[in-house]
């Protein structure tokens, strides 16, 4: 068992000698003596002893004021303090108790009582520290378990997104790019970090409902008929149905995004024909990110548009297809848009590496 540290603060040299002598008779206990209250307080605030034996009446800083300052110091709120006072009056005791004294002794100090109180308070201090260590251990375990749960949750989200890719001609890089574009817009709009995290990880789920669309429609190289397009439009609802009511905040956010990312700001979109801010914000953000990346990506049925042309299209559709605030936020962050585009290229090898790295980092 390691030695416990008792700090004695008393301006009277005789009392210091007495307490030092009495503490020396206790096992596993060292004494730090201070005849100056302010110096003693400063030492206690830094070293946080196991027990402070404190005189009440001292020049410069009395015992009660010292306790008040000590208790206001982070980490010193619970340090045991044994106050020694020559004043037996209740007012002094009440003031000291209110300030945070743990126990009292009245002068002249009884040797046996002093030793017993010190031993008790040191045991209390040891128990408190053990409890604190146990609580910190538990908190660390909870943090670790929570982080592991979150990691698995995000891994599930990511793998779900990848599963959808196999049914979609769009590339995996598209999913990563549009997710980062979406986060870029969200950040520019001032969303808090927790929302940005949700947005980044939920945006890739926007087309998850395509798993419910028959291959002959989903993979049709030519233009869809009106009936086929009606079926295709159901992917928004399918995605919502797959993800809604999840216990995962990521999947619930993904449900909203899947449901609303084809809505248009003027109300002409699908599946619900929502308009303006009736469309969930995440959906309005993802709409810009998704369309921009689709336009600038090559498809079997079309070449990639230039970035400038796509930007012009987005700008022209502001207020009709897209939320003007989202468009403005996106175009105002153009250098970052280019960085994201450069970072996530349509290269399967690179993409697999990026996804693996992302998974490993979770």
């Amino acid at each position, binding site marked *: 068992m390691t030695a416990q540290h008792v700090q004695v603060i008393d301006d009277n040299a005789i009392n210091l*000698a007495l307490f030092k002598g*009495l503490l020396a008779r206790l096992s596993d206990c060292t004494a730090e003596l201070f005849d100056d209250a302010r110096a003693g307080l400063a030492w206690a605030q830094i070293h946080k002893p196991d027990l402070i034996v404190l005189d009440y009446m001292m020049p410069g800083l009395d015992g009660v004021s010292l306790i008040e300052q000590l208790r206001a110091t982070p980490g010193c709120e619970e340090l045991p303090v044994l106050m020694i006072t*020559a004043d037996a009056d209740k007012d002094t005791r009440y003031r000291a108790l209110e300030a945070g004294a743990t126990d009292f002794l009245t002068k002249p100090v009884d040797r046996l009582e002093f030793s017993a109180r010190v031993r008790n308070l040191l045991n209390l201090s040891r128990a408190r520290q053990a409890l604190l260590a146990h609580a910190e251990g538990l908190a660390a375990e909870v943090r670790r378990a929570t982080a592991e749960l979150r990691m698995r949750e995000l891994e599930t989200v990511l793998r779900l997104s990848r599963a959808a890719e196999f049914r979609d001609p769009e590339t995996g890089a598209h999913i990563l790019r549009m997710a980062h574009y979406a986060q870029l817009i969200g950040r520019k709009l001032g969303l808090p970090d927790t929302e940005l995290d949700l947005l980044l990880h939920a945006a890739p789920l926007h087309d998850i409902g395509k798993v419910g669309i028959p291959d002959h429609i989903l993979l049709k190289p030519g233009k869809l008929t009106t009936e086929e397009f009606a079926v295709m439009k159901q992917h928004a609802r399918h995605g919502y149905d797959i993800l809604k009511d999840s216990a995962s905040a990521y999947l619930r956010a993904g449900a909203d995004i899947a449901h609303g990312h084809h809505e248009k700001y003027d109300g002409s979109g699908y599946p619900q024909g929502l308009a303006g801010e009736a469309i969930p914000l995440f959906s309005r953000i993802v709409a810009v990110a998704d369309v921009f990346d689709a336009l600038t990506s090559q498809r079997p049925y079309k070449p990639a548009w230039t970035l400038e042309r796509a930007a012009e299209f987005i700008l022209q559709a502001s207020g009709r297809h897209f939320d003007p605030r989202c468009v403005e936020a996106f175009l105002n962050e153009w250098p970052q848009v280019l960085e994201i585009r450069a970072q996530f290229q349509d290269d399967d090898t690179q993409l697999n590496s990026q996804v693996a790295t992302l998974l490993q980092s979770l």
Partner: protein
Amino acid sequence: MPLVLADLDRLLQGVAGRKSPGAAAAPAPSPAALAAAAFDYAEGLRSVDATVVSIIKPVFFEQWPKDAAALEAAVAAADWQRLTLVAHSLKSTLRMFGAEPLAQASEQLEALAGQQRSEGVAELHRTLCDTMPRLLQALGAPELAAP
């Protein structure tokens, strides 16, 4: 523990109201002075914890001359704050030696100083200084007790 003859003489003079040949008229001793003079300090020491006494005795031998000087200076300068602190410390120290009359004199001195009242301060101060040699003798430090 025998009484110090000078103390006894001063005490008797005060009680009898007479004075030594050639000496100036002295004020009558206060109840505190009488109690301090009549007290058996060796008996007082036997009534308290010997371990505590053995720990603090050597420090007290070093400390008393400093405290006596501090008392003297504080009384002379009417430095009430200083006097309060020194008397306060002496009070608890003297109680650890079982020197109750001296402890009470210190307590009264502390109280007067706390109220910034000069009346009685000199008398109590004199009682402390005059009687302390008897405690020091009882503690086995006759060299400190010598006038």
